[in-house]
C-alpha cells in the first residue's frame, strides 16, 4: 500500500512538472527562447535559420506564417502592464514608444487569431496613420468604450491579446530594450 501511494505521488509529480513546464514554456513564453519587454513577449529565434528547440516547438503549434528575422519581429501581450489578463469588455491605453522600425502595426485578436475589431472599423493601427505627441510617443485606445484620438474599437466578450508587428526593426541590434522600449498597456475602464 505504501509503495502504491508513493508510486502515485511519483507519477503525479512527474506529470505535473512535465506538463506544467511545457505549458509555461509554450503558452506563457516564460522559459527559453523568448524576449520579454514589459507585458510584451516575442519568440526572438522564430525566423532564424537554426531556432532553439523551444522556438521550433512553439512554431509547430502556432503554425502561422512567421517573419524571417531580417523582416521584423512580432510581440504579443495577453496581459496589461499590471499583469492582469486582457479582457474584451475593458478598454486599454497603449502608451509609449517603439524601437526604430520601418513601420509597425497593432492588432487586437482572440486566442484563435481572429481580429476582434468592429466590422467596418480599422482592423489594425498603423504607425504612419496615428496621432502622436511632439516627442513621437503615442497613445492608442483599444477597447469597446468610445475614445478620442487613436481608437481601435473592439467588440465581443472573453479574453484577447494584442499583437505588435515591428517591420525591419532595430530590436535585434540590442539597443533600447529596457522595459519602456515598448508601450505600456494601461487599463482605462470596463463596461458592466
Amino acid at each position, binding site marked *: 500500500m505504501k509503495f502504491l501511494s*508513493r508510486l502515485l505521488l*511519483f507519477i503525479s509529480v512527474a506529470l505535473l512538472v*512535465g506538463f506544467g513546464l511545457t505549458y509555461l514554456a509554450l503558452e506563457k513564453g516564460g522559459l527559453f527562447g523568448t524576449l520579454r519587454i514589459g507585458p510584451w513577449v516575442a519568440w526572438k529565434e522564430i525566423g532564424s535559420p537554426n531556432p532553439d528547440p523551444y522556438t521550433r516547438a512553439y512554431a509547430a503549434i502556432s503554425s502561422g*506564417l*512567421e517573419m524571417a528575422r531580417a523582416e521584423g519581429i512580432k510581440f504579443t501581450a495577453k496581459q496589461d502592464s499590471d499583469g492582469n489578463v486582457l479582457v474584451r469588455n475593458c478598454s486599454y491605453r497603449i502608451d509609449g514608444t517603439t524601437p526604430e522600425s520601418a513601420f509597425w502595426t497593432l492588432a487586437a485578436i482572440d486566442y484563435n487569431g481572429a481580429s476582434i*475589431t468592429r466590422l467596418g472599423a480599422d482592423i489594425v493601427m498603423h504607425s504612419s496613420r496615428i496621432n502622436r505627441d511632439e516627442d513621437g510617443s503615442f497613445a492608442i485606445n483599444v477597447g469597446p468604450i468610445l475614445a478620442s484620438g487613436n481608437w481601435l474599437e473592439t467588440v465581443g466578450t472573453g479574453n484577447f491579446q494584442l499583437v505588435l508587428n515591428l517591420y525591419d526593426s532595430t530590436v535585434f541590434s540590442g539597443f533600447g530594450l529596457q522595459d519602456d522600449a515598448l508601450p505600456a498597456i494601461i487599463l482605462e475602464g470596463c463596461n458592466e
Partner: protein
Amino acid sequence: MSRIVLWSLGGIVLGVVLHLVAILSMPTFVTRSVWSKVLELDNFEKIVVLENIEALSSNPLKLDPELLYGVCRLDLANGVGILNAQMPGDFWSISIFDATGRAVYGTTNRSIVGQSLKLGIFNDEQIKLLSDQELDIEEGLLIVESQLNDVFVVLRVAAPYKAVRGRYREQLAKAICGSA
C-alpha cells in the same frame, strides 16, 4: 519522510524528462503545421495572393491584416527555384522557409536596390554545380541555398492606403515563381 522526498525528487526528474521529450517531439507530431497549410493553397510553382483578413473572421496563418501576402511552393528536385518579381510599394520583404518551417532566407527592400527582385533557390547539389560553373545563371540573381528540396516563398507587401491594395495585389500576382 525521506522516502517521500526521494520519490518526489524522482518525479521531478521524470517530469523534466517528459517535458524535454514533449518539446523535442512536438514539431514531428503536430499535424496542422504551417507546411500542411501551405500545401492546401494550390500554389505549386505559382504565386497565390492570399485573401484579405477581415474583422471577426478566422486567420489560420496568423497574417497581419495590413499586409498583402503572396505565397509560392517549390520542389527543388524539379530544378533551381526561380522567383522574378517587380515589387510594388515602399515596403516589401521576402522570406523562404523549408518544409520543417525553418527560415532559409529573409530580407526586406532596404537591402535590395530598386523594386526588381530576382532570386534563385538552390539545393546542395545545385550549389555544387554552380560552384563548378556547370550551371548558367542570370546576372544579378540573388542566390539562396536550401538544404531541403521542399520550400515555400512568402512575399509581403505593405500598402500605405486601402485604395492601392487592389493595384498592389495585381502586381504581386504577376510575380513569376517556378523552377528552371
